[in-house]
C-alpha cells in the first residue's frame, strides 16, 4: 500500500495538533504549495481559514504575512510603495506585505477590483513592479486567499479570469459536533498554535518543490487530463469551459498530489480527486445552471463520469 511522503506526513501531523478534522484542507494546501500554486479558501468567517494558514506557515518555519482586504485598500498597500528618502536623495521602495513566503489574503472579495488585480498579478508573475522597479518575490511564494461566499453583502466578486490564478479552490466546511467540542477542549487553557514547532525549513520546502516536478506523468494520463478539461467545454450548463491553463494546473496539482502520496507517478485517481478543486472555479456556468441550482462541482463530477479512464499501456487518445 501507499505511504505518504515522510516530510509531508510530519507537516500534516503537526498541523493536526492545531487544526481538528481539517486534514484534507491541509493536504490540499500543501499540494498547492508544493506545486507552486495558490489556494482560494472559500467559506464563511470563523471556520479556521486564518488559523490554517498560520499553522501551515509555522510548520514550515516561516512567518506569514497577512493582508486584510477592505474596500478602501489601495494597490500600494499590497505591493508596496516608493517613498522619497531625503538622506539619500532618492526614492526607496518599501515592499508591501505581498513580499513574503506565505501570504494570507483575507477576504479578498471585499476589496476593489483594482486592488484585487494588483494581488493577482503579483501571484501570477511572482514579482511586483512599482515605478518601473521590479522586485522579485522570494520563492517559495504561496498565497492563501480567503473569501466569503459571494452572496454576502459588500463584496466585489472576483472576475473569472482572475480566479483562474488560483490552483485550487477549497471549501473549509464546518467541523462536526465532536470536532467542534475538541476545538473547545484544546483551546481551553491556551492557544494550541503557540506551542507549535516548525518541522521543515524553507530550503527543504524548495527541495520538495523541485522533487514534485520530477513526478512522472504518463502520456495516457496527460491525455486523460486533456480529455476531462475539453469535456467541461461541452457540458450543456457551461458557458465557458476550462482553459488549457486549467489542464496545466490539473497536471501540476496531480504531480504534487502524487508526490504527497509518496508515489513517483500520477494515477487517474489523483486526477479524479483533484479535478473538482482545480476545475470548478474555472467554469462559467449558464443562467440555467443557476436556476436549476447546479453547482460547478457537480458538473465536474459529471464530466468525470463521461471520460474513460486510460487502462492501456499503449496510448489511445480519443
Amino acid at each position, binding site marked *: 500500500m501507499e505511504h505518504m511522503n515522510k516530510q509531508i506526513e510530519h507537516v500534516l501531523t503537526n498541523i493536526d495538533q492545531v487544526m481538528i478534522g481539517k486534514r484534507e484542507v491541509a493536504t490540499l494546501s500543501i499540494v498547492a504549495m508544493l506545486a507552486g500554486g495558490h489556494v482560494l479558501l472559500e467559506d464563511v468567517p470563523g471556520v479556521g481559514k486564518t488559523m490554517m494558514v498560520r499553522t501551515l506557515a509555522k510548520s514550515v518555519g516561516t512567518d506569514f504575512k497577512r493582508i486584510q482586504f477592505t474596500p478602501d485598500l489601495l494597490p500600494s498597500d499590497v505591493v508596496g510603495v516608493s517613498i522619497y528618502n531625503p538622506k539619500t536623495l532618492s526614492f526607496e521602495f518599501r515592499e508591501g506585505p505581498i513580499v513574503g513566503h506565505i501570504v494570507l489574503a483575507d477576504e479578498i472579495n471585499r476589496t476593489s477590483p483594482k486592488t484585487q488585480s494588483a494581488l493577482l498579478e503579483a501571484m501570477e508573475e511572482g514579482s511586483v513592479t512599482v515605478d518601473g522597479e521590479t522586485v522579485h518575490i522570494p520563492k517559495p511564494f504561496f498565497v492563501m486567499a480567503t473569501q466569503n461566499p459571494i452572496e454576502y453583502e459588500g463584496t466585489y466578486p472576483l472576475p473569472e479570469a482572475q480566479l483562474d490564478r488560483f490552483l485550487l479552490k477549497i471549501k473549509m466546511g464546518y467541523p462536526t459536533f465532536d470536532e467542534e467540542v475538541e476545538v473547545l477542549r484544546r483551546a481551553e487553557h491556551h492557544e494550541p498554535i503557540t506551542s507549535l514547532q516548525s518541522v521543515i525549513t524553507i530550503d527543504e520546502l524548495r527541495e520538495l518543490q523541485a522533487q514534485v516536478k520530477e513526478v512522472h506523468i504518463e502520456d495516457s494520463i496527460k491525455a486523460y487530463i486533456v480529455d476531462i478539461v475539453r469535456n467541461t467545454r461541452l457540458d450543456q450548463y457551461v458557458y465557458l469551459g476550462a482553459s488549457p491553463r486549467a489542464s496545466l494546473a490539473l497536471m501540476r496539482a496531480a504531480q504534487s498530489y502524487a508526490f504527497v502520496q509518496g508515489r*513517483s507517478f500520477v494515477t487517474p485517481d489523483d486526477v479524479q480527486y483533484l479535478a473538482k478543486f482545480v476545475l470548478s472555479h474555472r467554469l462559467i456556468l449558464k443562467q440555467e445552471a443557476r436556476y436549476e441550482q447546479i453547482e460547478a462541482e457537480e458538473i465536474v463530477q459529471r464530466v468525470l463520469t463521461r471520460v474513460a479512464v486510460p487502462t492501456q499501456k499503449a496510448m489511445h487518445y480519443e
Partner: protein
Amino acid sequence: MTKPMSKIELCIYYAFIFLILYEWLVPIMELTNTGYIQYFMLFILLSIACTLLQLPMPIAALLKVMYILWFITLTHGGVHLLHIDGMRFLASEALYNAKQLIHLDVAAVTNSVRTILFFVLLWMLMYLIHYWITVRYSLFYFVVMTIFFLASLDTFSDYDGQWAIAKVLLYGLVLTGMLVVKRIIATHDLHVPASYMVLYTIPVFALVATAGYGAYMMPKAPPTWPDPIPFVKSVATGEKSVSKVGYDEDDSTLGGSFESDDTLVFTAQTSEKRYWRIDSRDTYTSKGWTQSYAEPTTKYVNANAYVGTMYNAENVDDVTITMETDDPYVLSPYGTLLYDYDEQFIVQERIESGYRESLYVSDWTTSPMDSYRLQVDEPSYSLEALRQTDMEKYESLGAEFDRYLQLPDTLPQRVRDLAHDITDIVPTAYEKARAIETYFKLNGYTYSTIGVAIPTETEDYVDQFLFETKVGYCDNFSTSMVVLMRSLGIPARWVKGFVTGDAIDNTTYEITNNEAHSWVEVYLVGIGWVPFEPTIGFSGTLDVAYDVEAQDDALDEQLPEQTPQSPEQPQVPEQEKSSATSTTASAAAIWNVVKWIGLVLVAVLLIGAAILYKRRNRWLPAYYVKQSHKQPQNWTTFEKNYKNLLKQFEANGYVRGKHETLAAYAKRIDEALQSTEMRTLTSAYECYLYGNSAQEANFAYLQECWEYLINRTSG
C-alpha cells in the same frame, strides 16, 4: 451424503434394473450363441440380493466366486463343483489357461476364461449401478447407453430389438422419474414419509404408462429410409449412390422419396398429347424391374422406313422432337409410323422391349440426335373389339408370352387374391384391366413423391404398397397393376417414358425430368399391346372408338373422361411429379439422412460450444492459471494475467464503468470478496501502467495473489 435408502425402495429400483439388464443379456446371448441366460440372470439376482441383504464384502465376494466356479464346472465340464470331478476339471482348466496366459497366447485360452471375464464385467456393472442409484440418484446415462446399445445391435445385426428398446425406455423413464424425486428430497434434505413417496411415484407411473400406451396406439409411418447397411456398403464399394431423378435405366430397386427436377429433356412439336414411350420391362423381382434376357436382340430402323401400320391417313401427325439433353434414346409414341432423321445417325431398336436409340454411323456408338421427326398415327381401339377379350382366349397363348406372366415366388397370396376380388365381376380382359386401373382411384390410395416406403429385405414392393402404405407415385401404381394383371393370367408389361409435358402453345410441349413416368401395357388378345394408366392424377391416351351402344356399365361411363380429346388434365396437380426412377430416390433419401445427421452433429457441436462459452467462467480460470505457469514472470505476462482477471470479474458481474479507475474498482472488488489481493495487484499494475520506467516487483507474490483471485472467480 444422505441417509441410506430403505430396503423396499432399493428393491423396487433393482427390480427395474433387473428387467433392463435382462434386455442387455438377451441380444448378447443371441448373437454370441451363448446359452444359459437364466444362470447369468441368477448371478445378477445374487448380486442384488447381496447388496440388499448388506452382506459383508468378503462373504458376498466369496458367494459370487463360488457361483461363477459352479457355473463354469457345470457348463464347461458338465459336472457339479462339489463333485471330485468338478474340482479336477477346475484345476486342469486353471493350469492350462494359466500356461496359455503366461505365453501370452490369448487366442488359445478356453471358453471358461471368457466366461469368467464376462461374469467379472457383470459384477463391476452391478457395483456401478449400485453407485448410480444410491449416491448419484441418476441412472439416466445407463438407460441412454442401454438404448444406444440395443439400437446399434438392432441396426447392425440380425437381432430385432424393437420391443426391447420400447421396454427399456419405459423402465428407464419410470426409474429416472423416481430417482429425480429422490434427488430433490435428498438435496433439500426433506423428510418425506414413505406413504408420500409412494404418492409421488404414482404420477410418474401414470405418465409413463399413458405415454407408452399412446405411443403404442399411434399410427406409425412406414420406414422411409432404407436399411443403412446396404447403403454404407454401396458407398464403401464405390457404387452409384446419388443420381438425379428422371429417366433412368436401372429399375431393379424401386421406392423411396425423390425430389423434383425441372431440367428440360426435350421439346416436342405435336398436334396431340402423347405418351412418349421409351422402354419396357418384363421381369418383376419383388423389389423392382429387370429384363428376362441378358443381351437384347437388335435391329436397325432406317430413316423414312415404316415401322407401323397406318390406319387413317388423315390422322397422321408430323411430330418434331428437339432433344435438350445428351440421352441417346429415341422416343416411340404410340402409333409411330416412321422416323426421319439425319443420315449421320441410325436408329437401333431392341426388339424385346421396344427400346430405340440412335447410333452415330461413323463409329457405331450411341450418340444423341439433336433433332428428328416422326410420323404418328395413334391407333384408335374399337370398344367392341376390346370387349371381346374373353379370358378363354388367354388359355392358348404361346410361350413367347411367358415372360409377361412372370411373377416372383415370394409374391404374397393376398396380392393374387386382391386381383381376383377386384376383377371377378367383369368377364373380359379389357374390363378387368379397367377395373384395376380404377381400383386405386376409388380405394383410398394417394399420390405422393415424398414419404414413399422402400421395401425391406423380406417385403414385397407391390404388397407393401397395396396393403400397407397406399402412398406412392407412378412406379407403385404401374408395377402394382402389372402384377395384378399377371396374377389373373393376362400378359402385362411395365413401360417407361415421359408423359405429355407442359404445353407452351397448341402444338409445342416441353418435357422435363419431372415428366418421367411409368405406366402399363396389357396384351389384349386380338388387339395387341394396349397402354393403361393406373396412376392417380394421370389420364391415359387410350383412344377408344365408341362403336357400341351406350352401356349402363359404371366402368364404361368413365371412359369419355379418359380420352385424349379432353382438353385439360384437371386432376393433375401443379406439383405433380412422376418418375421412372429407381435407386436414385432411395439414394437421395439416404443423402437426406446423412445431411440431417451432419446438421444435427453441427448443431450439437454448436450447442456444445455455446455451453462451453456460456460457462467459460467455470473453466477459464484453470486454463489461465495453467497458461501462466508456462510463461516467464515479467510485466508483459503480468499485464496479460491482470487483464484476464478483469475479464473474469466482469463476467462474474463486477462491471467496471469506463470512468472508474482501476484503484477504485479494486477497492470495490476487495470489499465484495473481503480480500486485499486485488488492491495489491492493481497498485502493481498501476505502477507498470502509469509509472515512468520498468520497476522491479515481487512477481512471485503477485502471481500468488492473482491465482487466489482468479480461482475465486470460477466458484
